[in-house]
């Protein structure tokens, strides 16, 4: 029942190959992340026009939205990588899944905090049970669960597999949670401000947003690769190539 994959797929499974290829990719992503994020935030902070309703507080969008999107796609990546690791027993996939969790959790925190700060001038309160904020909070809880479960196992491989199962269960649940929270919100709140659903944003507003989103993705790639690289070293610490690296360090 096993599917044959092209050669690169199995090469990716080799920790050493992964370590080498990421060392070539990392600088490019790092430069791209730095450039895009600096350009995006300067543009967003200083040059984009203020929102006609919310004024300048709207500039928080340039961190809030990228981190919120990232927190969600990071969970997806974590679950998919975990699933690949479970099914095809690929070590690197588990390493990637494990490295995703803390990054995703920190992005969720950032999205929550910026959302709350944005909420103060917009809604007049630090916290409102808005559907998006609530489901982001639940997403954060899901991350906490995965991180706690991974670290609770002494045997690394079992922790990886357990976390992968949990992440997959979570990914099935996320749409249900999202839907139910949104529905619960409309039931209880009546009409709230829909901050991010605005009538057609002018291009001077959304271009920097796009730049920031891509920048954050690049930054995420940098973090993920570097975390995964250390994790690969840790897991392969008995092999000769890692010993050589350590000696040279």
């Amino acid at each position, binding site marked *: 029942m096993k599917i044959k994959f092209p050669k690169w797929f199995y090469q990716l499974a080799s920790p050493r190959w992964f370590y080498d290829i990421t060392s070539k990719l990392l600088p490019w992503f790092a430069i791209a992340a730095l450039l895009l994020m600096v350009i995006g935030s300067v543009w967003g902070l200083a040059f984009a026009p203020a929102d006609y309703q919310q004024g300048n507080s709207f500039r928080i969008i340039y961190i809030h939205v990228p981190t919120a999107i990232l927190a969600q796609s990071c969970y997806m990546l974590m679950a998919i990588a975990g699933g690949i690791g479970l099914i095809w027993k690929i070590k690197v996939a588990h390493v990637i899944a494990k490295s995703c969790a803390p990054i995703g959790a920190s992005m969720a925190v950032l999205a929550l905090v910026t959302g709350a700060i944005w909420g103060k001038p917009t809604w007049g309160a630090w916290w409102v049970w808005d559907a998006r904020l609530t489901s982001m909070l639940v997403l954060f809880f899901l991350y*906490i*669960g995965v991180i706690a479960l991974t670290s609770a196992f002494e045997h690394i491989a079992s922790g990886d597999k357990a976390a992968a*199962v949990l992440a997959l*269960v979570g990914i099935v*649940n996320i749409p249900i949670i999202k839907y139910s929270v949104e529905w619960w919100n409309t039931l209880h709140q009546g009409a709230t401000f829909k901050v991010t659903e605005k009538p057609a944003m002018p291009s001077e507003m959304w271009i920097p947003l796009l730049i920031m989103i891509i920048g954050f993705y690049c930054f995420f790639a940098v973090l993920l690769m570097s975390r995964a690289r250390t994790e690969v070293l840790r897991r392969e610490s008995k092999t000769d190539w890692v010993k050589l690296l350590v000696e040279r360090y």
Partner: protein
Amino acid sequence: MSFFLAALRRDLLLTFRRRNDIINPLAFFLMVGVLFPLGVSPEASLLAQLAPGVVWVAALLASLLSVDGIFRSDFDDGSLEHMLVSPRSLLLLVLAKVTTHWLISGFCLALVSPVLALMLFLPNEGFAPLVFSLLLGTPTLSLIGAIGAALTVGLRKGGILISLLVLPLYIPVLIFGASSVQAGSIGLPIQGYLALLAAMLVLSIVLAPFAIVAALKISVRS
């Protein structure tokens, strides 16, 4: 099928021999419910408003509290190893265990829930929705909880961890369950909510057993 019944019979026998397993969740359920009037206010109108949520949260916690025990004793005494080296289907075994858990937690809680609802001044129209929504919602809680129990059964400090893993996944059931009671108590139709609860139940019956079996294998084989 006969194996499922045999497994179910064994698990029921095991719980009936230890009667505390049945009484503890019920007692816990009532006590949590009693904390709210003491902690918030004994005023009838306020409690009536809170009642659907309070009863549902109490039921959810009571179910969560007992879910840790689903596999614990079988893991500790080696029965789980026997189950894994058996040619029998683990899926059926797991389903039998979850069914037993539901019977001693969810089913009994649904039967007792009117007592708590009465103490919290839930309007009369809310009683039937409460019992029905608990009957439909708690099996999902048992199934999801069993995933968490299976993941943590091999760990020494599984207790708190399991709630950390499982509680976020309980949220949709809580929302639809409590909302159905709220809607019912002010005379709105509840079929929609019950249908959603039923849909979640079907989905979890189809998917959760596979996750539970995978998790059990990971826990025992670690």
